[in-house]
């Protein structure tokens, strides 16, 4: 079967199958940006590991950040099946030529932000990614199956942490509300611009990479999340929010903010990239040593 026949039959494309160059490029870009988001996402949460308020919470958070590093690893591997190299992709990230999710350019200023990220950001990521487990490219779909399982675990842990805060002392409740106030709109922006303004959507749909529109997924997230906020006794920071009998109608998203963050002018873009590039540069001598050692071992073996 040729490429289009496989796509039309809702089958899977595998690394050795023929595929249009544009399909390959689109996937490399999407998978790489996803991988970059995982590794940049380690920073805002890693920010609280050493300050986690109990040993149980510390262990949960360490395991979560470790999972993110793991997700990064297998997403870069999935991109490598398309002929890209992790080294080159990291270079594109470090030089600002590839992006990562805008959500990670917001600061985690309190412990409740860690809970809110688990609840809202992982929640939104799952809604975005579950359809990707049926994506037409096999290695990406399989990576997503594993990622989604782990993220749904993170989402439950985040919600549980948020529950404890919202049932806690007045200061803890305030912390929880403040986190929801700051993360709600950025979480809605994670689904990307409205369908009319999303240039690559139609082609990705035709290729079976994307299954639902940005607006459909965003609505699914809002519908799932508003009742959870009610359960927590927290107020969603959207005065226009209302139930129309089928869905929760939400207010206007500030796309000016989204595009500013996308362009590099979010509160933490510079900090995240600076941190990432420094870590990479600080580790250069270690990677060089590992290569030099491996070369010596190969020379000895000959």
């Amino acid at each position, binding site marked *: 079967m040729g490429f289009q026949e496989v796509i039309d039959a809702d089958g899977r494309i595998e690394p050795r199958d023929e595929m249009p160059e544009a399909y390959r490029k689109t996937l490399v870009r999407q998978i790489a940006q996803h991988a970059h988001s995982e590794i940049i996402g*380690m920073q805002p949460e890693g920010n609280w590991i050493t300050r986690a308020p*109990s*040993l149980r919470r510390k262990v949960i958070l360490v395991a979560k950040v*470790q999972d993110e590093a793991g997700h990064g690893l297998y997403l870069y591997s999935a991109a490598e099946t398309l002929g890209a190299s992790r080294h080159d992709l990291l270079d594109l990230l470090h030089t600002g030529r590839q992006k990562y999710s805008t959500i990670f350019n917001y600061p985690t200023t309190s412990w409740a932000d860690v809970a809110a990220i688990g609840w809202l950001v992982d929640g939104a990521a799952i809604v975005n990614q579950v359809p990707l487990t049926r994506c037409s490219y096999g290695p990406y779909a399989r990576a997503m199956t594993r990622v989604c399982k782990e993220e749904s675990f993170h989402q439950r842990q985040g919600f549980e942490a948020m529950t404890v805060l919202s049932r806690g002392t007045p200061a*803890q409740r305030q912390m929880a509300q403040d986190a929801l106030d700051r993360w709600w709109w950025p979480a809605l922006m994670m689904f990307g611009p409205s369908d009319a303004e999303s240039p690559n959507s139609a082609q990705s749909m035709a290729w079976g990479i994307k299954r639902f529109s940005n607006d459909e997924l965003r609505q699914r997230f809002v519908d799932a999340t508003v009742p959870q906020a009610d359960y927590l006794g927290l107020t969603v920071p959207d005065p226009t929010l209302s139930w129309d009998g089928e869905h929760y109608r939400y207010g206007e998203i500030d796309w000016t903010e989204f595009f500013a963050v996308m362009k590099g002018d979010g509160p933490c873009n510079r900090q995240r990239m600076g941190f990432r590039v420094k*870590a990479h540069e*600080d580790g250069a001598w270690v990677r*060089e040593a590992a290569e030099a050692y491996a070369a010596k071992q190969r020379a000895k073996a000959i």
Partner: protein
Amino acid sequence: MTPLETYTLRHGDDCLVLGQRLCEWAARSPQLEEDVALLNIALDLLGSARSLLSQVGDEDQLAFLRDEPAFTNAQIMELDNGDFGRTMARQLLVSGYQVLLWEALSSSADEGLAGVAGKAVKEAAYHLDHAHSWVVRLGDGTEESHARMQAGLDDVWPYALELFEADDVVTSLVAQGIAADPEVLEPAWRATVEKVLTEATLGVPSSDWRPTGGRHGLHTEPFGYLLAEMQHLQRTHPGASW
């Protein structure tokens, strides 16, 4: 506190404090595989810490509400991470020690210690393998990595000697078949570590300076910052649950 509680707490503090230090590497390591590995080691250590602290009291009270002089970890655990070479040097010395410690304690007359040790010995063996492979790669890698690795090793080496101190607590528990005997551990530890250092083309440091005091609550200056960071939320919100 009974001698057994004191002994259990010392090793719990060792695991807690080194675990906390390793957490500082999150998202900072030289490559993604090391973010996974270092956090994995941190998780193992924090897991052992929780089991050991819980045998003495409430784990969170002990971790978050004790003041500096009540912490009885050896000072090597609290040393700054420094660069990756120094972190790996510290890990080699500590994991080399913990493999032997947990091996010995897995047949301790105290069931609680034996239980933790039985699980921790397998984890420590992995930590030692990991440190071994990096110390060798860095020691026998490039000129720069050799120099950095040796410098890191020279820095942390004197602190390792505290791990083999014996006071009345240790001696009395050794006599009862509860504690591991430092006199047996030390030569075996030297053999393990020196073998790795030779393979890594690194010199075995020699030091007449033996910093000491951790087991009795005397710590290094950077330790106060570690505790301030770790404890601040519990102390800012007394009585809150998390």
